[in-house]
């Protein structure tokens, strides 16, 4: 019998209405929940503590969520260690320790399939990618490897891959004239892209080069944490990017996603909304009651997907705050839910005269 998850992965990402999706998605989640309940001690303990039995999982909403912080404190695996082919680390933005995610071949393939399927909806044909980053042979640190690994996920869309920064993370002006100027997509991590713009916005030769590129698409990933700290808004960022790279604002694609659920990414459409594909689901949880919020109300973003097999990251409560803007009716034409990311929550201040214990 064919896996419900594999069946789901055959679907076009935004072709189904929410109602049509719910049934198929629920079946895939059922299969995934049963698998992890059996294979992961940690997931089973959480389910048991919340009196959740996989066979009684009548809806996706009631599947227990794991806060993403668990991936920083536990090595969560649902397959034997021997099946792990790759270990991914998140950037440790809100704490000192990164998340550790173990991937087996099946999960990796599913993630690639989902990512390609989603991105095909945004990038019609292959592009010459100008990567605003350094190659990892220049810096073999975990962070650089992790960044390159995320970038390489877009490989199927690359006509060519051109790294633009040197080992000091500066624009390599000596090589700039060798870069392609036709059919280009400029890609980088949000904070790095912004840094490079600030460093070069008064450099006329660099700006002249980017002017040569006609209608580039800009893809940026990796989140807003570092820019939020600098109080840079999305509007301000888009304005700078648009001016520097000489591109239309609707061609700037901010991709939301989590290291803990690679593949199921959420790119901005031309309306600036992030779309939920058939491969995953988003719920917004009330910050106090943890109940699911209505459309238009902010709360914690919960991300659900049956894709992870090697680790029990199928229902995650993120540190991010966002809200669903609508269902099936985005002017861009994509079906399903669409949402906005608002902010990432930080570490709470200690109030009062109580204290931690060392």
């Amino acid at each position, binding site marked *: 019998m064919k896996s419900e998850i594999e069946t789901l992965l055959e679907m076009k990402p935004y072709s189904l209405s929410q109602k049509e999706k719910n049934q198929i998605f629920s079946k895939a989640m059922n299969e995934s929940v049963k698998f992890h309940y059996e294979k992961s*001690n*940690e997931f089973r*303990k*959480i389910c048991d*503590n*919340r009196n959740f039995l996989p066979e009684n999982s009548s809806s996706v909403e009631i599947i227990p969520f*794991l*806060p993403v*912080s*668990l991936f920083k*404190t*536990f090595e969560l695996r649902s397959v034997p260690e021997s099946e792990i082919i790759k270990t991914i680390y998140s950037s440790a933005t809100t704490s000192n320790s990164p998340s550790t995610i173990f991937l087996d071949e099946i999960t990796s393939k599913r993630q690639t399939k989902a990512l390609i399927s989603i991105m095909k909806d945004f990038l019609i044909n292959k592009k010459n990618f100008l990567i605003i980053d350094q190659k990892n042979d220049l810096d073999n640190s975990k962070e650089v490897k992790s960044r390159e690994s995320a970038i390489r996920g877009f490989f199927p869309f690359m006509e060519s891959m051109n790294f633009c920064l040197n080992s000091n993370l500066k624009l390599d002006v000596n090589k700039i004239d060798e870069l392609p100027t036709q059919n280009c997509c400029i890609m980088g991590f949000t904070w790095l892209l912004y840094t490079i713009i600030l460093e070069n916005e008064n450099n006329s030769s660099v700006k002249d080069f980017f002017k040569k590129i006609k209608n580039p698409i800009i893809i940026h990933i990796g989140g807003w944490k570092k820019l939020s700290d600098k109080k840079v808004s999305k509007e301000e960022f888009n304005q700078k990017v648009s001016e520097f790279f000489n591109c239309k604002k609707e061609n700037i694609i901010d991709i939301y996603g989590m290291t803990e659920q690679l593949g199921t990414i959420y790119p901005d459409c031309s309306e600036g909304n992030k779309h939920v594909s058939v491969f995953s689901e988003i719920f917004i949880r009330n*910050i*106090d*009651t*943890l109940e699911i919020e209505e459309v238009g109300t902010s709360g*914690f973003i919960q991300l659900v997907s049956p894709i992870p097999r090697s680790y029990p990251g199928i229902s995650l*409560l993120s*540190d991010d*705050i966002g809200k669903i803007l609508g269902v099936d009716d985005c002017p861009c034409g994509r079906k399903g839910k669409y949402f906005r990311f608002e902010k990432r*929550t*930080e*570490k*709470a*201040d*200690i*109030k*009062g*005269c*109580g*204290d*931690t*214990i*060392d």
Partner: protein
Amino acid sequence: MTKLLISNGELVNSETDSIEESIELIKTSRKWLHEQKIDDILEYVDVVGKRWSDEFKERIGTNTSHVKDFLSKSHLENKLDIALHGNRHSLDNFVDLKDPKLLFHAQPRGVSCHWIAGNVAILGIFSSIQSLITKNVSIIKAPADYELLSDLIYSLKNINTEKISGKDILKCFEVVYIDRDDHENQKLLSNSADIRVAWGGHDAIRSITSLPKDPFTEDIIYGPKYSYVIIDEKAISENMISISQKIALDVSTFDQYACSSPHTVFIKTKDEKMMSDFSKSLSKEMENVERILLPKVKETEEKAKEIISTRSEYEIKGKVISSKNLSWTVIISDEDGFAQPTFSRVIHVRPYNEDSLIMEDSRKIQSIGMSVDEKERLELADKITLFGGDRCPSLGKMSFFDSPWDGMFGMDRMVRWITTYK
């Protein structure tokens, strides 16, 4: 933004560039306060306690009766006598403390500056009153949620006794709000202090103590501290519901943000069923306290995230009983030692292991709530407080301010001892 909230006996509530004027104004009340007799001041404070417990009952909450009891004349007479080496009248003139050659007089140090922590503003009231009854004038640096503190202090204006006018007493307090980034005014405040009373967590205390001060300034640091509970099998088998109720109250008062709020309950038993039964009982009482006595105020997103993370972590490492929302959490595990506090009504239940409770290099422990066999209570209290731990109160009273507090007779440290020969 820096604000004068109460100044020169008036409610001001306006922004200011500098608190310099407040510092000068408060000094002018020193002589008047020094001339008042301690028994008259205590009588005044007694009336204040009664009025506050009537008029601010709703806002002070479960601490109301404690505020009234603590401020009562008989209670403070006793506490002052103990703190001032046996005779509170040493505040009025030279007294005989049974030294063969010397007479003693406790003079106020002068200007007492209080840095009050958010969420536990009522504790700051106690240090302010202690300053008053040791005849020190006060500048109170209020927390961002200063309304209750400011209203309590301002209410003094209309509280009078036969000997003391509220208008005069109010002039012994300046209340200011200073933004945490306003370093200039923070420095001014610190430099003006003869006594610095600081309530707060680690970062707040570090920031206050790093401010410049006069070499003769006395520092009284309340916090950053950690508190816990020890109970034994006898307490559980004889009084499980009652001790659960009391612990639930201790945890829920101040939403666990006070240094006296417990974060771990250690049970002296190897009986897992007893631990489990107690945890269920505690959970029930946490729910009752939240529903009936102390409804939980909505938490920040950041704290909500931490509670969710802690719950999930211990769903894996132990067992978690919690409200459906984030109001309260009881975590049972067999982990050793003190649980890292999450605050916000997250209480851990763990097996007792004496060795892990004695921290030789830390003075962080404050209150150790106890319900153990009377035969061994004092011996146990002696053993576990050798290196840290400042008080071993009974359950249900952990957050009741007392003297001494944090191992200090604060009122003794608010005075200078003057001697002369007999």
